[in-house]
């Protein structure tokens, strides 16, 4: 698309990490798709948003984070006013045939879901989007030190939560 926004390139380069990040918040495929579509519609309607952006990934993560926070707020309001139906949360990890690994992934997914949103975002971006603390700070509009401390707190909680399982797996190896 000469002179315009190359939405296909943006999708091919960033949709996968955005999907995983959004799924970690939404824990629901349909909501995740809605959020992802919302982001791409926003980019199409306002192509100037990406003009002059140095770190495209960080910028898109910021959009995704804002969209996810809005969803959480909407859900909070909905749950207060309507009866909450328990929905089985979708794991953010790929399925595996190894039963031990599968169990670990399921437990990790649940443990991630129990983390406060701000820690979950930093842990996800550091571990699976491979962003630096500077990039995370840019994406989430926080300082690099805050990003680093949130990561450390989040990782500590996961380690405590998964310690028995992790140590058992280590022994088995």
């Amino acid at each position, binding site marked *: *698309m000469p002179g*315009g*926004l190359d*939405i*296909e390139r943006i*999708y091919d380069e960033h*949709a*996968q990490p955005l*999907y*995983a990040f959004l*799924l970690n918040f939404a824990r629901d*495929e349909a909501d995740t*798709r809605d959020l*992802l*579509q919302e982001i*791409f*519609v926003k*980019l*199409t*309607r306002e*192509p100037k948003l990406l003009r002059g952006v140095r770190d495209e990934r960080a910028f898109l993560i910021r959009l995704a984070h804002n969209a996810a926070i809005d969803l959480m707020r909407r859900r909070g309001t909905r749950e207060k006013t309507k009866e909450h139906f328990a929905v089985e949360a*979708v*794991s*953010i*990890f*790929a399925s*595996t045939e190894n039963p031990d690994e599968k169990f*670990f*992934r399921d437990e*990790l997914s649940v443990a991630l879901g129990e983390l406060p949103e701000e820690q979950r975002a930093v842990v996800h971006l550091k*571990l*699976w989007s491979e962003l630096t603390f500077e990039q995370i700070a840019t994406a989430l509009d926080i300082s690099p030190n805050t990003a680093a401390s949130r990561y450390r707190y989040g*990782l500590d909680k*996961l*380690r405590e939560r*998964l*310690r028995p399982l*992790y140590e058992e797996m280590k022994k088995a190896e």
Partner: protein
Amino acid sequence: MMNGELEQFENRLRHQTLRQIPAEWRDKIIGPTSSLSSLAKIKKMEAGKMSVLRFWRELFWPNPKAWAGLAAVWIFIFILNFSTRDKVPMGAGKVSPSSPDVMVQLKLQQQMLAELMGVNDLHEADRQKFIPKPRSEWVEILTA
């Protein structure tokens, strides 16, 4: 857990494969954006038109009475121009059709003139029409 163990734990987490985005989502997500993109272009063009309108409005809006007065003066000038053009005599441009009797009379007069001048052939007389001469010859004729 020691630092080395923490790193091991971190690495273990890092190597967990994430769920892949469903392939069919690409068309579902990008598809609607292509029509939105053309819509955005149309909106941009409309915005351009609106800015032109806004320019004219800003130009005329501060002194509408002055502009209206100027327009009235122009209209008056045009009306005056047209009305003076209408006063030109209607018959001036028209040539009244000559009746056959007048034509016959005219031919007879021409024949008589030719006879008086001693020229038999009328066509010859026609040929001896005014031929422009140099101004010096005219002066000679007039002074003679």
